[in-house]
């Protein structure tokens, strides 16, 4: 079995290729920095492993996702490299390729995006390119899978060359420096010395930390200084080593490109630029973004989503329940089992499944946003606002992803270069209203705000963003001061999203929700039902005497000032920590109703519209769910920040709900 690493510049189609070669599905999107951690898959031949890595421009990292790649090269075993190049940006892509060849592992190049290059009038002679580099170059269309089988055969085959490891001559000073490092290490490291030395001279801190394990830090630093000094002595130019290395590589690349690529001038304005004139327009940029959001909410919560969910609800509570009841009767099951299945599982799991259509619509839109290339534009348009609160536009991408699910949102923060901004983004992304909170809104707006469903839900989403921005300002003025913020974003060309890719992306997000309903929510429903079924005085009692009521009752008084001091509300808030959609399944079980519609009717008895809004605001903000909390811990590596993320959310949620409920009452609302 071989390990083959997939590496290349960001947004060149690595993950698309990975999906095609391994038949799996990992996250694909049209912006730089979609993949933020290493993913392993098995080739269709069932033997060799393919490892998908985050995209990098060079092996000298600036951000955490890029660090993943450097760490991989330093610490993990692999046999071959599969380097993906974007044919339309050959120059920039080859900088990485040269570094890979210096590493000296067997490498194969997959040339992707040939269609884009062709549109720009760029012609590439694959034979010449392969000859110049000394490695096999294979054309692929990673998106459609064309050429993928041939590529798979090539990389898993026996004839993979290393290419020319000494393509670039860096001048006497640097070349001597490489030899000196080799002497210092004296065969103690297994990694290729030439590569280590060049990375060190370029200022790669990961490589430096690695070398410090073998050679004293003073020696390393004096080596770097003396190489820089001798370069200046020999050539008289004042460039830093990093600049010299970059320039030497550029010179070699210019020769390679001159020999293998030609360019016809293409005067027609690309479609991408025409679209950009509108969506990043001075005046229209933000309004267009808001309009799209509004459209998305209307479709999800009003025009399309609601009727679909209602139909599903009718189906589940009608034929399905009837069918199961009949089946249970036929099997002659006991009353206990009947109750458990009908009032516990069907109510709990069914109550969540009802929202599948709405969730899929939302995910469809998020996928559309991701795959079209608009995401990076949103980051650009939002940068000014984000800068004002101490973040940068890139932080908006994790937040948008967070609308689907907070977990990948928090992961996406890895691409933010400055640690302070990254931490803030991690802490604030849970305030984005994820899809699991959607059922709660759907239930309550259906019961209380039937006229303005989408608008009320939109107000909650906006509230989440506004609270996040205000807190960002507060945090950056108090807890997380200092550090300059930086913002450079690549704006990829728009790509027409393809039906298949869109569907896969939507399904990949949505299936998590369905799966959770079948496992987590299922188990939770059983537990909740049991807690509601039994109490200190025995089983099958009135629910108000159950353990669940006792548990909820302890905390209920706390919530009275914010409008929902019932044991039912506090009990469902508890389960909401495990997964937000549990709130709904718990309510379904507690209120003991056959379907969504009657639950809504019942809600009107237990809540006033004002209390309902206060409840929704509380749900929006009060706590990151269990999976999110675990991700925050994993990404910050700090128990304190994890505890903080829970603590501040609870506080803010309570204060805001209090202000809304009490304030609303003052104004005579109810």
């Amino acid at each position: 079995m071989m390990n083959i690493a997939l590496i290349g510049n960001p947004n060149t189609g690595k993950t698309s290729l990975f999906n095609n070669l391994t038949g799996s599905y990992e996250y694909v999107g049209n912006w730089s920095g979609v993949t933020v951690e290493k993913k392993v898959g098995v080739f269709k031949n069932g033997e060799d492993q393919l490892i998908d890595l985050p995209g990098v421009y060079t092996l000298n990292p600036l951000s955490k996702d890029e660090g993943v790649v450097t760490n991989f090269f330093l610490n993990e075993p692999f046999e071959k490299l599969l380097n993906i190049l974007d044919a339309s940006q050959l120059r920039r892509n080859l900088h990485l390729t040269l570094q890979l060849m210096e590493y000296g592992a067997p490498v194969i190049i997959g040339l992707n995006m040939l269609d884009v290059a062709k549109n720009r009038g760029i012609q590439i002679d694959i034979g010449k390119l392969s000859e110049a580099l000394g490695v096999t170059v294979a054309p692929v269309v990673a998106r459609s899978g064309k050429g993928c089988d041939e590529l798979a055969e090539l990389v898993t085959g026996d004839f993979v060359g290393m290419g020319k490891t000494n393509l670039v001559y860096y001048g006497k000073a640097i070349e001597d420096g490489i030899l000196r490092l080799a002497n210092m290490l004296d065969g103690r490291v297994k990694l290729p010395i030439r590569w280590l030395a060049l990375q060190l001279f370029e200022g790669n801190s990961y490589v430096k930390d690695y070398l410090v394990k073998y050679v004293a830090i003073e020696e390393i630093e004096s080596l770097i200084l003396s190489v820089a000094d001798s370069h200046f002595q020999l050539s008289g130019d004042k460039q830093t080593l990093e600049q010299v290395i970059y320039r030497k590589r550029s010179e070699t690349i210019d020769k390679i490109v001159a020999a293998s690529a030609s360019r016809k001038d293409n005067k027609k304005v690309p479609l991408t630029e025409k679209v950009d004139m509108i969506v990043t327009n001075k005046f229209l940029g933000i309004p267009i973004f808001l309009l799209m959001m509004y459209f998305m909410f209307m479709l999800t919560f009003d025009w399309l989503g609601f009727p679909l969910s209602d139909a599903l609800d009718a189906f589940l509570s009608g034929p399905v329940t009837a069918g199961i009841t009949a089946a249970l009767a036929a099997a002659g099951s006991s009353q206990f089992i009947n109750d458990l299945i009908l009032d516990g599982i069907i109510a709990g799991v069914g109550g969540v499944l009802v929202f599948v259509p709405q969730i899929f619509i939302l995910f469809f839109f998020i996928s559309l946003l991701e795959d079209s290339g608009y995401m990076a534009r949103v980051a650009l348009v939002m940068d000014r606002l984000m800068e004002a609160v101490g973040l940068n536009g890139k932080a908006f991408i994790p937040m948008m992803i967070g609308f689907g699910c907070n977990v990948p949102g928090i992961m996406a923060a890895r691409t933010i270069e400055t640690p302070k901004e990254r931490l803030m983004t991690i802490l604030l992304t849970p305030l984005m209203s994820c899809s699991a909170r959607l059922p709660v809104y759907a239930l309550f707006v259906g019961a209380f705000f039937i006229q303005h469903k989408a608008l009320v839900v939109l107000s909650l989403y906006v509230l989440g963003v506004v609270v996040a921005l205000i807190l960002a300002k507060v945090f950056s003025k108090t807890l997380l001061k200092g550090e300059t913020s930086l913002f450079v974003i690549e704006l990829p060309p728009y790509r027409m999203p393809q039906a298949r890719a869109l569907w896969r992306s939507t399904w990949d997000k949505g299936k998590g929700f369905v799966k959770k309903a079948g496992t987590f929510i299922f188990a939770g429903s059983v537990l909740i039902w049991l807690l509601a079924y039994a109490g200190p005085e025995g089983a099958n009692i009135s629910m108000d005497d159950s353990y669940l009521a006792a548990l909820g009752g302890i905390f209920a008084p706390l919530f009275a000032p914010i409008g929902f001091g019932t044991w039912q509300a506090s009990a469902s808030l508890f389960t909401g920590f495990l997964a937000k959609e549990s709130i709904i399944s718990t309510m379904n079980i507690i209120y003991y109703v056959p379907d969504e519609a009657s639950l809504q009717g019942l809600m009107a008895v237990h809540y006033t519209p004002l209390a309902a809004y206060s409840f929704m605001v509380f749900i929006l903000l009060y706590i990151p769910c269990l999976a999110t909390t675990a991700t925050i811990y994993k990404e910050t590596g700090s128990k304190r920040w994890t505890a903080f993320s829970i603590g501040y959310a609870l506080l803010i949620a309570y204060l805001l709900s209090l202000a809304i409920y009490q304030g609303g009452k003052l104004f005579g609302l109810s």
Partner: protein
Amino acid sequence: MLGKLKAGEKGRIMNISGADKFVRRRLLDLGIAEGSEVCVKCILPFGGPVMIESCGQCIGIRRKEALRIEVERA
């Protein structure tokens, strides 16, 4: 200065050393350095970022940084 160009104007980068170290590094990663030709595609309001095009790719940077990059109008 790059930040002074109007939307649609083109220029060649003369000196980039005034820009922030990280910004410079990122631009270099994207193949933008002294000598690169750039074209300002659009400028966002309220002192927001600028979108520039160079060698067929579009990049957004802050106005503040663009104001530290010397260009020669073309």
